[in-house]
């Protein structure tokens, strides 16, 4: 894992054990570790250092000992010790060995996985992107695929069906993998992409599958954010919509806000409302409310979707009003009902 914080921490520990002042700068000349006065004192030093950037041997410059650290043949950062001579060279060499051990090179698969988990900083992501020829100029979406059986066939299907350059699959475990793909299009395209994955894996691979997609299209260094979105969609989607099978993060933003609430507070809120929660056990009424919300509180559209007479719909909404004191036709009451429905599923606290 290449990470400036780690370099700082390590350098700090090393500094405690050596007399000579230690400085670490990155390949652009930014100070990663060391006394900032160093820069002020040695403003011209960095210009000179450029000449030494590809130097693989330990060298001395004025009163400094310099040693470049290469990762995969690319200079990544420079160790600078204030002082010259045998002792300084020996210490610089030892520090280099420590960093070499830590900054091992990751395979493409390992890199993608660690990038998803947010274990790389931006510099490291772009370093590896260059190494593995991953396009840095496009934006990416992340989809999590969870299968009932082992994922090998599903992976083969996905890798063959989407024959595009900017698509990567990463195995998370025996039943789950991630698809990272570039996209220029928005929500509809993500839904279509997810549907195609689901239908193809199920019909060709004979296994049930769940697909959760991020909503954001992000630059490469924000892949972790998109992965968290897909993870949230998978968790909350299953809680709210059960076996629907395709979950898009955008649909669960409201639930995500409620998901962070303390359960005790949820209980207090519910008690305050003092309504008949047997409503949440009546499937027909819940389906009616869901359809009514989906159709923006429009009676005619909802009746059409449910294939019921408008009067039947009004009767059901009246029944809900009698049970809860909340009139779903009014926005504020509808919002409360929607909140209650989401809480009921998230926390299972309504009995």
């Amino acid at each position: 894992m290449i990470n400036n914080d780690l370099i700082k921490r390590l350098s700090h520990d090393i500094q405690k054990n050596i007399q000579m002042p230690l400085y670490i700068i990155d390949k652009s000349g930014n100070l990663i570790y060391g006394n900032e006065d160093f820069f002020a004192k040695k403003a011209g030093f960095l210009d000179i250092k450029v000449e030494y950037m590809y130097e693989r041997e330990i060298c001395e410059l004025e009163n400094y000992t310099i040693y470049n650290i290469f990762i995969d043949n690319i200079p990544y950062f420079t160790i600078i010790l204030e002082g010259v001579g045998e002792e300084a060279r020996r210490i610089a060499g030892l520090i280099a060995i420590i960093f070499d051990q830590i900054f091992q090179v990751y395979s493409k698969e390992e890199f993608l996985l660690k990038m998803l988990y947010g274990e790389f900083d931006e510099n490291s992501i772009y370093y590896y992107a260059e190494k593995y020829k991953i396009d840095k100029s496009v934006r990416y979406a992340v989809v999590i695929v969870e299968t009932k059986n082992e994922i090998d066939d599903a992976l083969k299907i996905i890798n063959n069906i989407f024959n595009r350059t900017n698509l990567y699959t990463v195995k998370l475990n025996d039943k789950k993998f991630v698809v990272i793909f570039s996209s220029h299009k928005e929500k509809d395209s993500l839904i279509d992409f997810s549907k195609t994955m689901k239908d193809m894996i199920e019909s060709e691979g004979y296994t049930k599958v769940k697909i959760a997609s991020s909503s954001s299209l992000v630059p490469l260094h924000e892949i972790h954010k998109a992965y968290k979105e897909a993870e949230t969609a998978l968790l909350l989607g299953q809680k709210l919509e059960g076996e629907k099978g395709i979950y898009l993060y955008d649909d669960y933003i409201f639930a995500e806000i409620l998901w962070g609430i303390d359960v005790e507070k949820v209980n207090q809120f519910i008690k305050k409302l003092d309504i008949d929660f047997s409503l949440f056990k009546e499937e027909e009424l819940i389906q009616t409310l869901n359809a009514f919300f989906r159709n923006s509180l429009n009676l005619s559209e909802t009746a059409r979707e449910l294939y019921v007479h408008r009067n039947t719909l009004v009767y059901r909404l009246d029944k809900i009003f009698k049970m809860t004191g909340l009139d779903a036709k009014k926005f504020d009451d509808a919002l409360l009902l929607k909140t209650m429905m989401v809480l009921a599923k998230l926390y299972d606290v309504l009995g």
Partner: protein
Amino acid sequence: MAGVVLKHVYKVYPGGVTAVKDFNLEIEDKEFIVLVGPSGCGKTTTLRMIAGLEEITQGELYIDGKLVNDVPPKDRDIAMVFQNYALYPHMTVYDNMAFGLKLRKVPRAEIDRKVKEAAKILGLEEYLNRKPKALSGGQRQRVALGRAIVRNPKVFLMDEPLSNLDAKLRVQMRTELAKLHDRLQTTFIYVTHDQTEAMTMGTRIVVMKDGVIQQVDKPQTIYDYPNNLFVAGFIGSPQMNFIDARLENRDGKVYATFKGFSVLVPEGILKRLKDPSYVGKEIVLGIRPEDLHDEEVFLEAYPEAVIEAKVEVTELMGPETYLYLDVNGIPLTARVDPRTRAKAGDVIKIGFDVNKLHMFDKETEMTILNRVVS
């Protein structure tokens, strides 16, 4: 080739949502059965239970006489074609059809034989070396079907396979699928929300709503004798007109009265009443758009079946014209000859073909008429 039997099948999801309730159906070998209903009616869940992609909560499922509740999908001798199919873009037609068999590690010679057989059935022999981008939309759809055919399944399961196609190709593929069924002589179970697809393709139709079978019958029987208001409204386009009416006995004749109008109910319909006591009660009267007439000849022949209606909108469809009418607040749609002179704003006379009346109980919404036994 195999029959499929579902006995008292339920699907209840965690959290208690019941998607399918007490589903009973015997699908005969080589039958083309269509499950149809609105979104959320349980048709896809039923198909997925047959496929093994959803577990059956309660009940029994038999394929070819064997109980398969706990048999994994790959061992059920089924093949699936779903709505969002995609072809492998860098593979030839041959490889596209072979891919699924390769995953299952079928011997190469057997794959070759099956792919060539399927290509012959689908008329794709000369395209086997082409890539998908060199195919027409119809040919691509056939390749997708080919992937299912090469599995040589006992049962084909199809979930809205034509929904992503444009209207013209959809009509063409409807016919091709029907022909394919004839050629393969295999059981097809087909899910759609489109009642036209159901009517044109199925040997039998299963109409579903809220996880419950509403009616199972041949297409024409469902159209002529809908069991309830839902089926009557769902099957047929434009949909059946419904009128809250009262059956009244006047001097030995029974009339359906509504909004100040009366329509004579003929003896043939009265004989079919399940319970004569409906006379004198409120019912729901149903009449299909094609059974409303504005031709002079009809209006003169059946004067006791004529009412007045205001024309709201006319829609010329080519071979027919739809009149959207208002009868004192009741909306009616009539499908009439395109030579009609009616235009928006006119008050016209409209005649009911009373032998084609449908009647439903206002409370239970079930039909109150017996079928004609032929």
